[in-house]
């Protein structure tokens, strides 16, 4: 097949280019914080990525060009060189994705060993959890979930309908830690929490519109819950669902969306998804094909202008979110001040007091809900707006 290249030289060249490409990929991974391409955690130490990448790149060149004198013999045709470069691309990407995935697997295994039995929370066997985290499995309408009551505060409790993001419940147990973190913070400030179970799959549109109303109807019927103080919290795509529900259901007295998706582009982020997850995770994530359609159908941003101006709304994103660009986030503020002709027209200052947009430095789409300060501030936000509603 190789007419012009000496075979051993072709092999050596292939090795050189694979290693050099690995170096380029590490430099890119460090520069753009792409954990799906990284051999190590470059987010905290980008210089490490540059050092590793530079060493691989320069090292491969030095090895090849000082070892093989045959490079001065009649050389490869352009097509042969292109072919070898293309093969090297496939190999280098494959090696990079594999190492990044192995790193993630090891980190997860370490987390799971530390978390112990809590790793399966809240989907654990009967009797395994005790105290406030022994949520009661409940069913309502089209979904089911777990109902938690706080240890402090007086009945009836204000309550939060908590919708996790679609991927978190299919993830490994240790990655569900953020569900427990958020639930814990809400319980600590005196809220009852209905954690919706979406493991069976995300309802398609328009069935998904019934999710929050049925959850709120269930909560309203609980004797320990105050039906006049209900809030909705959604993560990721569930934030879109939460926001949409607030625009149509007047039982929602406060709504928070952490990391909601703002456009169809967020469902097709391309390389940016590797800022959030490894390649294998990205393939699984992309398997949920309804995502883009749901973002468009839910039209959560448009629904902001239909949400009553009296409903406090919290929108939060990580500054490094790979699925929502800064330009998209900036557009949200502008659209949020558009009111429809039927509502009275508050001044923009009035609306801004009820619409809270927060960008959290250094956090990505996936790490935002895992941040303890984010969980605490979200719980505090709900507490300030719901605990004393008349």
């Amino acid at each position, binding site marked *: 097949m190789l007419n012009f290249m000496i075979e051993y030289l072709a092999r050596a*060249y292939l090795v*050189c*280019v694979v290693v*050099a*490409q690995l170096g*380029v*990929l590490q*430099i*890119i991974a460090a*520069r*753009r914080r792409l954990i*799906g391409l990284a051999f190590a955690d470059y987010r905290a130490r980008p210089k490490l990525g540059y050092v590793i990448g530079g060493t691989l*790149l320069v090292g491969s060149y030095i090895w*090849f*060009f000082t070892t093989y004198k045959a*490079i*001065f*013999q*009649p*050389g*490869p045709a*352009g097509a042969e*060189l292109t072919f070898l*470069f293309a093969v090297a*691309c496939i190999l280098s*990407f494959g090696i990079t994705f594999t190492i990044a995935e192995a790193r993630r697997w090891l980190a997860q295994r370490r987390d799971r060993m530390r978390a112990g039995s809590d790793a399966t929370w809240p989907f654990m066997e009967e009797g395994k959890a005790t105290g406030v985290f022994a949520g009661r499995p409940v069913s309502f309408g089209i979904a089911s979930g777990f109902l938690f009551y706080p240890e402090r505060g007086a009945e009836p409790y204000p309550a939060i309908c908590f919708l996790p993001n679609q991927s978190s419940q299919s993830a490994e147990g240790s990655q569900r830690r953020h569900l427990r973190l958020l639930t814990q913070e809400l319980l600590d400030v005196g809220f009852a929490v209905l954690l919706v179970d979406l493991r069976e799959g995300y309802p398609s549109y328009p069935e998904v519109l019934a999710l929050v109303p049925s959850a709120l109807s269930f909560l309203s019927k609980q004797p320990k819950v105050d039906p006049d103080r209900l809030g909705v919290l959604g993560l990721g795509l569930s934030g879109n669902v939460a926001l949409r529900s607030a625009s149509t259901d007047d039982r929602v007295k406060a709504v928070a969306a952490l990391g909601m998706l703002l456009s169809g*582009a967020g469902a*097709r*982020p*391309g*390389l*940016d*998804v*590797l800022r959030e997850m490894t*390649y294998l995770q*990205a393939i699984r994530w*992309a398997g949920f094909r309804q995502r883009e359609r749901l973002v468009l159908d839910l039209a959560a941003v448009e629904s902001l202008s239909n949400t009553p101006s009296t409903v406090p709304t919290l929108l939060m994103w990580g500054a490094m979110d790979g699925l929502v*660009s800064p*330009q998209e986030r900036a557009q949200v503020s502008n659209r949020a001040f558009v009111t429809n002709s039927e509502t009275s027209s508050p001044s923009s200052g009035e609306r801004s007091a009820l619409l809270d947009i927060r960008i959290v430095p250094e956090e990505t789409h996936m790490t935002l809900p895992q941040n303890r300060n984010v969980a605490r501030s979200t719980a505090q936000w709900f507490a300030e707006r719901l605990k004393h509603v008349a």
Partner: protein
Amino acid sequence: MSLDYELFRLINGIAGSVPLLDTLMRLVVNEYFVPTTISLLLLGLWLWGESPKERAFLQRAVLLSISALALSGILVKACNLIYWRPRPFANHEVNLLFYRPTDSSFPSNPTTVGFAFATGIWLYKRRLGVALYGLAALFGFSRIYCGVHYPTDVLGGILFGTGSGLIVHRYRRLLEPLINLIINVGRRFFVA
């Protein structure tokens, strides 16, 4: 003696007298160093952009420079069918630091490749394009230094390569559907 040959002798005459320079020129002149370096730069450029919009802009530059390379290859092949020039070492005593290529001396194929890539990138990223022009010029110079091309061969390579880049840029709209398809497929597989 023609100006072309005089200039060739001036440059090739240095070969063999400064060992460090000889080593540097031999490193650059071979068919691996510069093409591999340019290809790695293109790979980095493909993945570099901060946002999807910036990445699409740079990916367009990469794809158009590859198109310029393809066009320059066609033009060189067409030229070789019409005009065939013997290498400097075929007719003269030269300081040869490389093997003896058997294809036509005009135009310099490596210079054509280098300038096609450099032009394609320069039209989108000026600074990087200038650096690539520098590398391509060094590649061309090394071919004269090592005794395998005349200066006019390198000049021909510059014209063919730069011309290909400009022609592709001028008619880039014809390539838009293919470029968009490649970028969209790349996005679907999270590599663009």
